[in-house]
């Protein structure tokens, strides 16, 4: 294969992409490079994943996607989730929810962190000394301090009594004190680390949100700052100072920026190459194998990591210093239309424009029993085997597992009945064969009438007034939507001219990652994936299956509801941007292992313990949109 002709060094045009040879950038014609085997990676600030890219219909007319503008505005820190201008200097930090920052935003982050001096005042050692910092509720701070002081006095008395020079020596001399010495030292180390965490979060400008912070207290301001830090660094943890969060806090800001850079590059590479294999199928025994054309076993590759690493190496961006130099070399204006050309390793032999893909969902351990008794006491329903999502490929008479991810199945949820009261209802996940015919980017969830009113409202600053509005975050389109950033609709194909049967189950993106990764997490019947994985999955499917672009699915939905003598009106102009798979994608949902006493789900409403109802529960309502409601979160769910 011949290398494309190298253009003269200085200015580059929109048709050019940069290549790196011997550490130097040069410009090539992007189309010519693509023809000669290069992959063009989009570094521009108007990049979106395939599902939000500008698409054209068969007549060549662009079919606009309403959410594309918002996606770009969020990635570039110019718009908020409603598509309204973001206040100057405000940051979105939405990578955790499936919207990576643009390279322009990363550039600004790198350059600002290189200049900032406050990080030098942070004691890294104190941060590295602890793995986590135990949460102490603000109201328990005083008693916790007293307890620590008592423990200190007790240990000091013992130290003197045992003629030990230090507490460590005491623990050695009198082993019965060892656990107490360990607990005391841990608490002291955590307190010291907490002070450094506060400095670090203040240094990153994160403690200015969420009200006033009291030094040393894990209050709301602190929790919100930790959440923003986790969002910025794509850390899937609850909003506390747990191990991954502490690891990132202990790294210098530029090191975290470089990790963000590699994640952003990863999504661009995945998008350019159209791959999905991310190593999620690997086990302790290593990667699974398939039989290649040669008849020999071939190990399944982690293409996401392999191709990202290859791109970074070819572009000379394998270190934090190199990335910083790259951003210094390219002014912000370059990222308006910057593209790179790389020669990625060849894709596996099973790649084709039309791949025989299918999805299997294993529901894992399933409980139908009520998790509460009549007095509201919770009964544990442990699961060893969690629900999982499998993407398969049929190739040369073998079924190859390309990706396997944690997902959710339905469980007991709060639902509003026709009498205006909330009850519990079991909202399970259907079992058996289905298909995905439609994939919707920026989907809208039409909240069923059973959605608790409390979740349909939120407070918002509307043109200078802090007021209650309909919570469109839940409805979408948007990263917080009940259907996330993209959804595949499960249906049973209609026969003899009848329409498909849709029971409201989808496999969709979700910002509620705790529901996916926690032992207590359930959905309303849908199968949730983190937004970035759902985007990768459906972008991959759409690029390797025959499909038709249906475009924006306009509708004129409006529904009113009452909340404390004000009428609120939900208005939804579109269902989202639809793609139709032709033929549809096969899906199989496995029943899983039914645990507990009940072997079939309860189909009626169950009163909530402690609530006074006007009468017996009304009959349940069914609607196909009632399944995925992130709006109706369970008690205690975040």
């Amino acid at each position, binding site marked *: 294969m011949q290398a494309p002709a190298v253009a003269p060094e200085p200015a580059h045009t929109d048709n050019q992409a940069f290549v790196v040879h011997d550490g130097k950038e040069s410009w090539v014609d992007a189309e010519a490079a693509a023809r000669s085997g290069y992959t063009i990676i989009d570094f521009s600030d108007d990049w979106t994943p395939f599902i939000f890219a500008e698409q054209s219909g068969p007549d060549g007319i662009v079919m606009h996607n309403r959410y594309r503008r918002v996606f770009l505005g969020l990635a570039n820190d110019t718009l908020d989730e409603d598509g309204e201008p973001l206040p100057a200097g405000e940051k979105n930090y939405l990578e955790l929810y499936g919207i990576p920052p643009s390279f322009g935003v990363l550039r600004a982050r790198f350059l600002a962190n290189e200049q900032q001096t406050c990080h030098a005042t942070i004691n890294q050692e104190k941060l590295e000394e602890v793995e986590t910092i135990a949460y102490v509720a603000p109201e328990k701070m005083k008693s916790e301090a007293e307890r620590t002081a008592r423990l200190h006095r007790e240990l000091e008395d013992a130290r003197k009594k045992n003629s030990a020079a230090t507490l460590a020596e005491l623990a050695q001399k009198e082993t019965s004190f060892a656990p107490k010495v360990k607990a005391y030292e841990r608490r002291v180390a955590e307190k010291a680390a907490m002070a450094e965490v506060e400095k670090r979060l203040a240094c990153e400008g994160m403690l200015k949100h969420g009200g006033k912070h009291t030094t040393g207290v894990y209050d709301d301001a602190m929790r919100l700052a930790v959440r923003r830090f986790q969002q910025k660094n794509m850390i899937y943890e609850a909003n506390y100072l747990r191990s991954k969060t502490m690891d990132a806090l202990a790294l210098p800001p530029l090191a975290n920026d470089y990790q963000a850079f590699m994640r952003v590059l990863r999504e661009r590479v995945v998008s350019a190459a159209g791959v999905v294999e991310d190593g999620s199928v690997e086990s302790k025994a290593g990667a699974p194998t398939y039989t290649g054309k040669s008849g020999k076993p071939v190990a399944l590759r982690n293409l996401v990591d392999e191709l990202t690493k290859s791109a970074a190496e070819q572009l000379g961006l394998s270190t934090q210093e190199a990335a910083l130099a790259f951003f210094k070399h390219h002014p912000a204006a370059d990222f308006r239309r910057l593209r790179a050309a790389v020669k990625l390793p060849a894709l596996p032999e099973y790649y084709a424009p039309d791949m025989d893909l299918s999805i299997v969902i294993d529901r894992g351990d399933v409980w139908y029993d009520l998790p509460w008794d009549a007095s509201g006491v919770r009964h544990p329903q442990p699961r060893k085997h969690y629900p999982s999502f499998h993407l398969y490929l049929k190739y040369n008479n073998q079924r190859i597992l390309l990706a396997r991810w944690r997902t959710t199945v339905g469980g007991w949820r709060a639902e509003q009945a026709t009498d205006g009261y909330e009850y519990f209802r079991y909202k399970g996940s259907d079992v058996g064969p289905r298909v995905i015919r439609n994939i919707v980017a920026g989907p809208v969830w039409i909240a069923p009438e059973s959605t608790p009113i409390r979740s349909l409202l939120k407070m918002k600053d509307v043109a200078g007034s802090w007021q209650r509005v309909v919570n469109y975050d839940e409805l979408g389109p948007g990263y917080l939507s009940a259907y996330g950033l993209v959804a595949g609709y499960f249906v049973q194909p209609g026969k003899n001219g009848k329409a498909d049967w849709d029971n409201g189950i989808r496999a969709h993106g979700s910002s509620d990652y705790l529901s996916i990764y926690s032992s207590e997490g359930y959905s309303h019947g849908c199968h949730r994936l983190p937004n970035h994985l759902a985007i990768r999955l459906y972008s991959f499917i759409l690029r390797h299956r025959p499909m038709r672009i249906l475009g924006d699915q*306009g509708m004129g939905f409006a529904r009113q509801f009452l909340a404390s003598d004000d009428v609120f009106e939900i208005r939804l102009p579109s269902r989202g941007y639809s793609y139709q798979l032709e033929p549809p994608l096969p899906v199989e949902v496995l029943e899983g292992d039914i645990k507990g006493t009940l072997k079939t789900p309860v189909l009626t409403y169950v009163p909530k313990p402690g609530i006074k109802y006007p009468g017996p529960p009304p009959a349940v309502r069914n609607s196909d949109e009632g399944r995925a409601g992130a709006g109706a979160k369970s008690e205690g769910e975040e």
Partner: protein
Amino acid sequence: MRTPARSARSQRWLVRASRLALATAALLFAVSITAWAAGKQGKDAAAKTTDETGKTADGETPAAKADTVHVTIQTVPPRKAQVKWGRKNLGPIPAPRALVLERPRDSGPLDLTIHASGFLPVHTRAYTFTDSRVAVKLTPPTEKNTLFGYREEPAPPPNPDAGAPPALPDPPKP
């Protein structure tokens, strides 16, 4: 060099001029809104207003997209009402005519509140992706039980002392 007195005078003049400019701009804005509302009277029914799907009433798609969109707001039943966007008063709905707002295309949604005398306030949303019509249904307080979300409070528990005479106050102390 400018003397302090002259400088103060010129500052006062600048303040007055800015106030005048602001007042003129406000007047022009009010006139344009009223003109829109008045100009649209009678034409609304015949005009090619688009719904929120971007298609015109007769199913056509507008050929060229303007930089602005028109949001037409009506009340059902037609009643005079005020339209507020946060603290900003966007003007009255001169029922039976509609209020027509002009907004930059794709500039984000407007969370509006409609206040009509004798009806519950309605919070609704208008979009700017394309021309759209927002027909807001008004509900009088006496009919709020027809709205979703209305709930009847459970009856108070029966009084265990029902039927017993009220306790007598303590006799006055001597």
